[in-house]
């Protein structure tokens, strides 16, 4: 018996990533409406974050120009010339938007799990191990998060640039350190995908820990 069980363990395999991605993309397409709504919350949060960061980069660039007329313009717009980085009020607002977005992700993923009890149960009957199910949901959340974040970064950049141009004119773009902007965008991407995936762990765990028998009993 012990030998048999050892043989079982040695034969366990993992669900290939390519397969997980394929299934996840198909599931997202199937529920395009809801995945879009979840993505919108990510888009908004990341766009907000990105536009704030871009605004800071613009101000940093303008300040380094050291032109009196621009400094005056900055002062008129309420910029504290001695302060660097985000004000605590801004940090608070950005954090709040990210928290709201995260709650939305947990909610949407839990709904997705509930909707798919039968599918999860079937997969378990077919021999899917718990970690297959977890991987499937995390990959799905990750893809959803990545799409939302990318769009959010683009939207945030666009809004931030247009806003800066209107307020400060051409110098805003001319003096911009694009490397800093790229760094901000990269960080925003990590935050967006990270939050989307981390907050899907609990729903994925709920899905994976379901008994196949219970999952199959759920009426559609």
């Amino acid at each position: 018996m012990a030998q048999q069980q050892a043989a079982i363990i040695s034969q366990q395999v993992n669900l290939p990533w390519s397969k997980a991605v394929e299934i996840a993309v198909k599931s997202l397409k199937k529920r395009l409406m809801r995945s879009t709504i979840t993505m919108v919350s990510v888009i908004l949060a990341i766009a907000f974050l990105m536009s704030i960061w871009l605004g800071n980069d613009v101000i940093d660039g303008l300040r380094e120009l050291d032109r009196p007329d621009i400094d005056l313009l900055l002062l008129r717009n309420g910029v504290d010339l001695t302060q660097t980085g985000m004000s605590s009020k801004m940090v608070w607002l950005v954090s709040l938007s990210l928290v709201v977005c995260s709650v939305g992700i947990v909610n949407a993923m839990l709904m997705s799990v509930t909707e798919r009890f039968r599918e999860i149960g079937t997969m378990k009957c077919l021999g899917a191990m718990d970690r297959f199910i977890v991987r499937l949901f995390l990959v799905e959340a990750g893809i959803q998060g990545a799409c939302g974040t990318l769009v959010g970064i683009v939207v945030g950049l666009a809004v931030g640039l247009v806003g800066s141009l209107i307020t400060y004119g051409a110098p805003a773009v001319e003096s911009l350190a694009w490397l800093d902007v790229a760094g901000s965008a990269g960080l925003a991407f990590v935050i967006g995908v990270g939050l989307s995936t981390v907050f899907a762990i609990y729903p994925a765990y709920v899905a994976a820990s379901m008994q196949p028998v219970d999952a199959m009993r759920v009426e559609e």
Partner: protein
Amino acid sequence: MAAAQKQEVIVRAVDVHKVYRMGVEEVRALDGVTLDVYRGEYLCIMGPSGSGKSTLFNMIGGLDTPTRGKLEIEGYDLSGLGKAQLAWLRCNKVGYIFQQFNLIDVLTALENVTLPMTFAGLSGEEAESRATEVLTRVGLGERLHHLPSELSGGQQQRVAIARALGNQPGIVLADEPTGNLDLITGERIINLLKELSVEIGTTVVAVTHDMKMFDVSDRVSWIRDGRIERVARRDEIDIQVGGVRGRAGQGAPSQAPQEGEAQT
């Protein structure tokens, strides 16, 4: 079926009990079930709802473990298996066919059949060629890339049969496989399942109320109140339209054929 073949036991249940807790109350779903299923046979399980037949069925499939008693599938003692090992057993040793077909609706027929093969560790090409073979055998060679929503109920159940047989399991479990199909389609599915089980030598355990299923069964087992009430071979039972005449309590094998003669 050869007598020697019948002797090999694929599922052995010995005094199996299953108790569920619902709040403070205890529900005895199985109350001492002892049953041997032989390799290659076609066994029907009958019973009213709440009789414990689903619990027994789930246990034979490794979906549930007994509270007390011993249950062996292909020599593996269920009580000694962990979650991952049960998953392995379900993947490699058991095939499932459901009333609702339960195909993954975002995957094509071919992908549905290859999924359990992927779980079993087969490479992509290997799984695809084997799945194509099985799907062609069940008559869907032309519809490999159709989604379940583009297939009729009968075709979906064929995909499910192909999926159940894909990993060449020793035992196939069918839960009311004709429950969602019209009479003719249901009959075709039953015949297909019977043909395949004979061809491959797979054991089939079916829960059903479908009389057509009786015709192809080797044995029928009745379960009531968590106990096996009676097990009878197909030739001991007389079937008429409208019901089964061999009843519990009249289980003496000599009695049933006599009864059959009187009614035909």
